[in-house]
């Protein structure tokens, strides 16, 4: 079916906004209607501007309106980024020429051009960050405002780097704009779906195995790094996870898990559940497509795709978003991707890093025990 019921993932315009809005010193303008503006604004909780174009501006041209908005914002001293939405993108106006008097970053990322990852990646490439070989330490990437765990992941990555005596370079994408042009030569990742491609990747921090490999590698490439404290903490916390999971398995059968997430988080959840809980991963529905996706991963763009997988495999533990929870019946549920509705979330919980794994396992065990799985 070419059509899609209840599409589960945001569009490329939202992706571009979720990248650029994370940079201090950059004013992000959504060039489109108020309807297109409201969604990223409410989702990202970031200050966005809009042109709020009207019908007559579509008919007679939106040039004056765009100029008006950009001219007003140009006094702020910040660089301006303009993201085009669907209608302005097909009007054929030469927006770049319109704005050539201002130093505007133009990101053509209409919703029909793809999903959130495409827009995020496009915006980052237009921003064109650069590596500065003299910048010490490692960059942290995968920090995307759209990800409900981005703040927790960043804090956790910074904590681990501090424990390893490694300075943090640039955070993609939550940093001062100027730092984007002085990135460190190496990068660690918190969420591979929003990788920056800036600097040489030294690994991710999703899962104990990744963290161990990454910090071992950091010791090799970063002068002055000492990952001993991180590895010691990792060993101790992994032992706690093993004990908690072992205790669970004394009393309960391992869960049969259905996992729905972006490829990176889905892989983390599957590896963690298999390794520590001997869980059976009965299905993995991915929001996005990657070249190195595991064979059992199915792309699930719409709710009916999710519903079909759940009905076919009958998992007793579902990992995903509140979309998945709405079709999971009585299965235990743990949320790892947006939207996570119907639940108050105030604390910046991580999914990455040592504390991310502890938090994830804690939620899984509690959800399974609550459901008597």
């Amino acid at each position, binding site marked *: *079916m*070419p*059509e*899609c*019921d*209840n*599409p*589960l*993932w*945001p*569009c*490329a*315009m*939202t992706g571009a906004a979720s990248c650029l809005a994370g940079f201090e010193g950059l004013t992000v303008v959504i060039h489109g*209607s*108020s*309807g*297109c*503006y*409201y*969604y990223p*604004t409410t*989702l990202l909780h970031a200050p966005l*501007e*809009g042109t*709020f*174009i*009207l*019908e007559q501006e*579509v008919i007679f041209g939106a040039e004056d309106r765009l100029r*008006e*908005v950009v001219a*007003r*914002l140009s006094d702020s001293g910040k660089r301006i980024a303009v993201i085009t939405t*669907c*209608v302005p993108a*097909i*009007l054929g106006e030469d927006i770049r020429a319109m704005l050539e008097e201002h130093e505007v970053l133009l990101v053509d990322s*209409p*919703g*029909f*051009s793809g*999903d959130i990852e495409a827009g995020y990646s496009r915006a980052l490439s237009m921003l064109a960050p650069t590596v500065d070989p003299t910048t010490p330490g490692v960059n942290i990437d995968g920090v995307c405002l759209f990800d409900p765990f981005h703040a927790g992941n960043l804090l956790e990555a910074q904590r681990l780097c501090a424990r390893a005596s490694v300075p943090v370079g640039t955070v993609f994408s939550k940093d001062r704009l100027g730092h984007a042009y002085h990135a460190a030569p190496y990068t660690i990742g918190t969420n591979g779906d929003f990788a920056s491609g800036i600097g040489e990747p030294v690994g991710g921090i999703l899962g104990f195995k990744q963290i161990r490999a990454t910090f071992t590698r950091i010791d090799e490439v970063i002068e002055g790094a000492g990952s001993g404290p991180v590895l010691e903490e990792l060993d101790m916390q992994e032992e706690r996870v093993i004990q908690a999971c072992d205790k669970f398995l004394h009393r309960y059968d391992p869960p049969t898990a259905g996992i729905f997430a972006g490829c990176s988080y889905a892989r983390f959840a599957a590896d963690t559940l298999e390794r520590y809980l001997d869980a059976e991963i009965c299905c993995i529905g991915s929001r996005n497509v990657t070249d190195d996706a595991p064979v059992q991963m199915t792309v699930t*763009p*719409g*709710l009916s795709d999710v519903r079909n997988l759940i009905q076919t495999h009958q998992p007793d533990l579902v990992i995903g978003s*509140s*979309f998945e*929870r*709405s*079709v999971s019946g009585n299965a235990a549920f743990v949320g790892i991707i947006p*939207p996570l*509705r*119907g639940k108050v979330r105030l604390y910046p919980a991580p999914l990455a890093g040592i504390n991310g794994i502890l938090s994830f396992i804690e939620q899984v065990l509690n959800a399974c025990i609550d459901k008597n799985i």
Partner: protein
Amino acid sequence: MPSNPLHANSSRLGGCTLTGALSVTSHVRDTSTIIHGPKGCAHHNASLLHAIWLENDRAAMPSLISTALGESDVIFGGEDALRVAIRHAADTGISAIFVLSTCIADTIGDDTGAVCAEKYGIPVIPVPTAGFLGGTFQDGVNNALIALAGIPEPRPGKGGINLIGEMNLEYEVRENAAEVARLLSLLGLNVNLHFVHDITFGQIGCLGRARLNILRSPALVPVGEFLRDRFGTPYIPSFPHGLSGTLTFLKTVAGECGIDGSAAVASEMACQDAMTAAFSGLQHFPIVLDRSHAGEDDMQAATELAARLGLPVRGEGQGLCLPVGTAIGTGGTRRMLHRWRRALHA
């Protein structure tokens, strides 16, 4: 609404026609709504409706289908994609399909109405929406209600009362309707149809049987006019706001229905007196009424309430800031009073 300083023209803040129409059509249970546009438009709205529904203790998801227009459809047209989507949806056992276009579908010139007019075996109802090209959020609501009101044939009847255009994205939508139903019950009247809140497609057939339509807000007057022209049903332009507004409402409904409402008014007045007496401890605090989330009706209700309680209203920064919420009926006013008392504590 965002507090963005750039808006020279408040109509720019009117929101998306599509979202307005969806807030109506998604509440017809045994139907699907097709959004003819890119997937992102449907996702934004699915996510919004999902959040609102969960807040209203409704764990289900709306039945939205996107035609998922991509770059090639933008170039070559999306009518075939729409036709295919309607055919697939028509085979799923639902009672009807609503088709909502988007700004992108209208910009590329797709003839949504013509595709909907083809035979599919079940009613396929196009709702004039085109994102911001079709107007504002409220235009979307009105267009959807009028499109649905065009479905049933006029049927004579002097039954209950219709509630028209409940704000389905409102957090307290059910409480507001329940309060109006309570007030109607004081007059011995009942609700005929929630048009449209959580109903079946078949229930729309009894739309014309009501003796009176009560609109949620004056913005729905075009819908009230349409219903009066089609079914001959008179309307009241708004749910009641505040204390005196509630008493006036009772009198107006009684008058429209040709019944004696004096006992109901007296009973409600006594109820209001008892309620305000219970909050008399709030007296004499200088207050500021926070109008950031309030309409004019709610502000009037709050101002009246403050005067009734002897609360001096001051300018910004000169008193305790009190929230002004939706004060529908006496019940809504009581909830606002509790929020005021809460504001004194934290």
